[in-house]
Each structure stands twice: as structure tokens, then as C-alpha cells.
């Protein structure tokens, strides 16, 4: 992992964020559990604290705390083929487990299906368990292009979300606070995009494994000034590294793309393994999702709801194969890649189930080789080290031969 000064700062702000959430009730504040692609700007407008169970599940995965949580979920009757984030969440709630010993109870739930349909089922379970109101924003899968009709559908639901929030919080929806939150969101996502674009530099000052770690603030603090401050500092640090020609690894010779979610419990292992080959992933489809929100030019727009609707429909995981193929080909070119890695996450159907034919097509169009690595984002039992390393070695050999 690249030694970045910003990392300790990030741990600090994430710590503060969770502490505030845990103390919310004491301070007369309300907590909402929300999905990672939720239009959180609406929550900031009413002063609710958003908590992201997905972020906590990633944290549990990275701290090797997941196994116990998954066993608990299984004992509650949740099948092993279900999303491991959801199972981790159910187990953490039942055991009050994981590094933070459970999450603060939600007062309400906001679920946006732009990342998958699974979250709808996950949040239905939460709604029954906590007996709190759930607002489900239906953000359809974009099979072709984001149409005006689709934007209108989502926009209409945003209006409903405003009413829902005003009622829950017992005060009118604050349009000024909302505009401010959108502005902060726009700035943070713009900065995040700049962070990710640094991967184009040769050598790249940071790699995708680093971006998985530094993702936390754009997910959880998007819409607040803290995310803007954080990424401003990170961009500064990275610019300095670029000007010094300092790469994330000393001998960068194989540049790659990472598709799908991280393998949270093996980030360091994979980073080191690849680094030994001079290989490094410099761009990832997953981290780009929050940058795509920034793509929509939120700042200075009259129709904020429409702009947000379009932005939140954009994430990679919500797009069809034509988009995915073109996107991967474009990244290969813009980031000067030698090949691509596809993590086939066995419990993330929307991300994984198009990978096989997409891989073939991208290889055909770009001439660059890809490799599929079968695992899971947080379930360690799905990771077979020998299988992964064998595949990676063969892949890296073939990349070197071509070069």
C-alpha cells in the first residue's frame, strides 16, 4: 500500500463520523441507514445523520471480522448465496459485532436501487427488524441510455422523499441547506474524480488499492464540507508525488484495471503480490461510480433534482453491457493499460454476471488480456489462494510476453 500522509487524517475523520452517529440520540439527532448510492443530499438538508451499512460491512471485511457475522446470519436462516454485505449486516446487528460493536439504531431507512435490486430486499428485512419507516427510491437499471422518462420518474420520487423527510424530522424541507449539500457533493465528487485521474500518470502516484481505502469519505461524508477538505488535501499530496515522479510502487511496468468490488480482506496481500511483478491496478470501475456523480455538473444547475437523478442513475453497476464494454475500452486507452482484472464476486450478481461475455468483447476490441478472479468481497471462504495466484501468475506472464 502506498504510504500517503492523508491516510491518518482519513482514519481520524471516519472515526469522528462514526462517533457522532453513535451519539446522535444523545444530541437529539436522527440516524438514517442509507444505501451507498442514495441521494444523501436530501438527508443533509434535514439534518439527519446517514449511516452506510455497506461501508461498515467493508470495514468488517478489511478487519477480518466478517466470518463470525456470516455464521450468525446463516443461523438466522439467510442463505449463503445472498449478498455478503447484507449477511454481514444482519450478523453484525444480531451480535452487535464488528470493530464498532454494531451500528447505531436507525430512526428510518432510505434505500436507492441504483446499485442493485438486492438492497430493496435487504432494506425490507431491516424495516421489519427495526420497525421503522423505509423510503424506497426506485432507480431503474439503465439498459440503454439514461432517458428523460427515467429522469422524470426518479425526480418525481425525490419530491416524495422530501415530503417523507419533512414528516419524519417534524420540520419543513430546507431548500437552502439542500442546495448547500448539493454544492458540497458536487465539489467533493469533482475532487474525487481528480484523485482517480491521477492514476493516468506514469508512474501512478496511487493505485486502486489505495483508492479503495480512500473511498470512505466520498461514500459516507458526501454532501458535507469535511469530504471537500479531505480530498482537497489528498489531491495536493498526490500532485506533489506526480511532480516528483513518485509512483505507488518502485518499478511500475504493468498497468491494470480492477473491475467489480474489492476483495476487502486481501487488499494488502494482492497489492504486494502484484507489486512483486511490477504490476499495479491504476483505475477501477467501482471507485469511479462516485466520480460519475460529479460528471453531471451539479454546480449552478436550476433543476437540482433532475441533475441529481441523472447523476445517481450513472454508476457503472447500473449500466448495460454496451456501456460497460465501451467504458472498459476507454479506460484501457486513457490509462495506458496492459490488461484488466475482473473480480467475479460470487454474491454480487449485477456486477459479476455480465463479466464473462464482456471480457471476451473487450479483449477482442483492445487486444489487451483480461483475467477473471473468483472470490467474494467480504466472505473469506470464497477466496482460494492457490487458484487466485495461479491465475494471476499465468495472466501476468502473458502480459509480459506481449510487452
Amino acid at each position, binding site marked *: 500500500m502506498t504510504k500517503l500522509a492523508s491516510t491518518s487524517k482519513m482514519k481520524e475523520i471516519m472515526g469522528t463520523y462514526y462517533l457522532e452517529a453513535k451519539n446522535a440520540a444523545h444530541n437529539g439527532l436522527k440516524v438514517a441507514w442509507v444505501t451507498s448510492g442514495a441521494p444523501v443530499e436530501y438527508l443533509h438538508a434535514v439534518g439527519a445523520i446517514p449511516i452506510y451499512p455497506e461501508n461498515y460491512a467493508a470495514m468488517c471485511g478489511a478487519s477480518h471480522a466478517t466470518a463470525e457475522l456470516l455464521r450468525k446470519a446463516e443461523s438466522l436462516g439467510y*442463505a449463503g448465496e*445472498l449478498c455478503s454485505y447484507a449477511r454481514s449486516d444482519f450478523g453484525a446487528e444480531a451480535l452487535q459485532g464488528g470493530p464498532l460493536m454494531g451500528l447505531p439504531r436507525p430512526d428510518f431507512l432510505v434505500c436507492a436501487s441504483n446499485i442493485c*435490486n438486492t438492497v430493496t430486499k435487504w432494506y425490507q428485512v431491516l424495516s421489519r427488524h427495526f420497525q421503522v419507516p423505509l*423510503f424506497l*427510491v426506485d432507480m431503474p437499471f439503465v439498459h440503454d441510455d439514461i432517458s428523460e422518462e427515467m429522469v422524470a420518474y426518479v425526480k418525481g*420520487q425525490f419530491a416524495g422523499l422530501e415530503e417523507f423527510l419533512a414528516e419524519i424530522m417534524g420540520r419543513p424541507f430546507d431548500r437552502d441547506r439542500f442546495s448547500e449539500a448539493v454544492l458540497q457533493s458536487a465539489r467533493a465528487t469533482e475532487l474525487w474524480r481528480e484523485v482517480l485521474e491521477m492514476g493516468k500518470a506514469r508512474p501512478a502516484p496511487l493505485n486502486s488499492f489505495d483508492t479503495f481505502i480512500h473511498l470512505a469519505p466520498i461514500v459516507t461524508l458526501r454532501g458535507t464540507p469535511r469530504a471537500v477538505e479531505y480530498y482537497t488535501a489528498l489531491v495536493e499530496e498526490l500532485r506533489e508525488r506526480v511532480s516528483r515522479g513518485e509512483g505507488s510502487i518502485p518499478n511500475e511496468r504493468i498497468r491494470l484495471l480492477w473491475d467489480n468490488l474489492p476483495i476487502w480482506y486481501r487488499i494488502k496481500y494482492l497489492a504486494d503480490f502484484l507489486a512483486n511483478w511490477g504490476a499495479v491496478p491504476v483505475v477501477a470501475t467501482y471507485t469511479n461510480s462516485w466520480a460519475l456523480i460529479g460528471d453531471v455538473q451539479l454546480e449552478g444547475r436550476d433543476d437540482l433534482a433532475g441533475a441529481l437523478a441523472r447523476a445517481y442513475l450513472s454508476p457503472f453497476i447500473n449500466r448495460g453491457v454496451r456501456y460497460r464494454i465501451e467504458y472498459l475500452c476507454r479506460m484501457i486507452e486513457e490509462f495506458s493499460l496492459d490488461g484488466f482484472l475482473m473480480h467475479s464476486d460470487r454474491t454480487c*450478481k*449485477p456486477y*459479476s454476471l455480465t463479466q464473462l461475455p464482456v471480457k471476451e*468483447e473487450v479483449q477482442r476490441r483492445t487486444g489487451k488480456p483480461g483475467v477473471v478472479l473468483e472470490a467474494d468481497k467480504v466472505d473469506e471462504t470464497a477466496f482460494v489462494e492457490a487458484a487466485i495466484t495461479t491465475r494471476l501468475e499465468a495472466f501476468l506472464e502473458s502480459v509480459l510476453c506481449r510487452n
Partner: protein
Amino acid sequence: MLDELREAAENPRAEVMKWLRVTGRPVVAVLPAYFPEPLVHAAGAFPVGMWGNTLPLGASDSYLQSFSCSIARSILELALKPESDFIAGFIFTSMCDNFETLAEVFKLALPRKPVFTFVIPNTSHLPSRRPHLERELDRALAFLSRVAGKRPSPEDYARSAKLYGEFVRLVREFYRHRALFPAALSNYDFYAVLKASFFMPKEEFNPRLRSLLEDLDRVGGEGARVLLSGIVPQPLSLLKVFDAAGTRVVGDDFAGAYRLFSKEPAAALLGSEIDKYLLSGAPCSTLHRDGQDRGKYLAARVRELGADGFVNWHIKFCEPEAFDRPHLLDELRRQGIPTLVLEVETSSRNFDALRTRLEAFVELIRQEKEKGAVS
């Protein structure tokens, strides 16, 4: 009549080809779940339900990983066969991630075949549903116009709606008869009849079912009365195990059976009517409704039907069903209803282990009944 319908269920391709020859209508495959099928009929096409099959998986392996649900995999397997080339188009809905991505995989695996995904509104904001459905209806009609060569007029649709109204009335009568006289047909035959409806035009199915209903015995019969629940009763042959174990299936909660047939066809070509259609009938794991409790619903169904037990027919790896299952089972058990979960894949052939568990379940039910009779 029964033989003919059973034959249709057991040889779907031959059945579909027969009606294709007779009617000359383009075949449009309607995939899970809840696309308003009368629209396909009104466009002058022959809608054929594709809810999975028992093909061994081979060609589909290079397109879908093994953790895809077996229904999706088997559908792709079938669609990839050259013999399926006569299918003019495929209609999906947004019901789950597996099928959303399957629609995309189709675009790469079968690039010449028109594919459409109907977006079912799963939202907490009810006022957003109708305007959305109005637009989806427009999109669906444009697709059907392309694939079937005709955009249905309101009059075309009215005729189709009437036909499908008759269809669901007959099917519900069939279910009512089942609950009262479960020994009239074997479990296998009951579901074979329902399955046949996916492979023939409703104009042909309706009179056949009507005729069958007239001939059915009114025989109660002994045996453990069970309510089945799951996404679809595949593979059909598993029902023979239910017969052999001495169970009487008195009703079901399958998305590809009762949940589908319990819905009232949209009365007109309007988004508001499609909305009513989607909101009608039994709740489903794939249709979100704020405050819905399928556990309580199923417990009530068990009581209404006088069922002795509940069997969850779990197809690997159906996600919406698997998320609902723990709550369903908890609620049913809380209400003192015996439950059993049977796990299968569409290509499963060996049911020995399932048979043993089902027999044990039937024995458990018999003991419960005896206890009840004594006390």
C-alpha cells in the same frame, strides 16, 4: 383432455411449434415476471412463458457464472440452441438482478434477437407509479409493434383482456376445485395442466381447461394437505415425489403459478390499469409494497386452505425468495404451522434426499394431527 395438456407440459417445444404452424403468429417469449401478457396477444403475437427448463447446462456456462440462478441459466441454455431461432423476441421485467443482467447477456449472446425489459415500479412513492407505467406501456407497445409488426389498438387490447380475464377465471376455478377435491388429480397432473397454459394460445387453452373442469371428480382423499411456495414449480417431476410421499398439494404461492394467476389482467391500455394489475393479487418477493407481510399472508392462506403444512420450494439461487424465507418461516412457526424447505436446481434429477425429507415431514404432520385428535 388431461393427456393432451400433460403432453403439452412435457414437450413444450413441440407444442409451441404446433401452434406456431397453425396460427402463423410470431412467438414472443415472456420471461419472469408479471409482464402484462395480454399486450403481446393484442399485438397479434403468440406469447410463450419461459420460466426455466430441465436442460443440462453447457453452452450457457461461457456466458453466466455458476452462481447465477438456475432458472436464468436454463433459459439462456434454451435460447442459445439453434432450434430456438424461431423466437421473435424476448420480454424481461426488472424483477431481480439476475434477470436484469440476463437481459444484458442476451444482447451479447444473441445479438440479432430483440430484447425488452419492462420496469416494474418498486417505489415507496405511490404517485410516481402511474406516470412511470404510462411511459413503460408506450415503450412496450413500440417494442411489440417492432417485433410483432402491429401496435395494438384499444379495441385489440379489449379483446385480449377479455380472453385473459376468462383464462384467470378458469384457472382460479381450477384452484378452488383443487382445494376442495385434491384427490381428483395427482399433484403432478395439476401442475402439468397449469404449465401447459404457457405453451399454447389462451384461445386454445381456455376451452380445454373448461372441458377438463367439467370432467373432474369430486374426490377429497386422505393425505397431508400442503401449501407450496417458491418462485416456480420446476422441475415439474419433483411433484411426482410429492405424489409418492402421500401429500396433497391444495394450493400454492409460486410466482410462476398462483401469484401470476391471482392478478387481474389490466382492463384497458392505460398506465393506471397496468398499475392495478401489478398491485392486484397475491404479494410477491419481487414486488415491493410498504408494510407488506408475506409471513402473515401465508399463514392465513394455510388456514383458509385447511393445509396441514407449508413447503418452501427453494430454487438455487433465487435471491428475492431467499431474503424473504427467514421471516416467512419464523412467522409460520410462530403460528404453529409445520414447515419444510426443499432445495433444488432446474436441472436436478435425483430426488432421493428430498423424498426422504418429505416423507419425514408427512409423518410429522400425521403425528401432529393425531396429537390434535387425542387432545
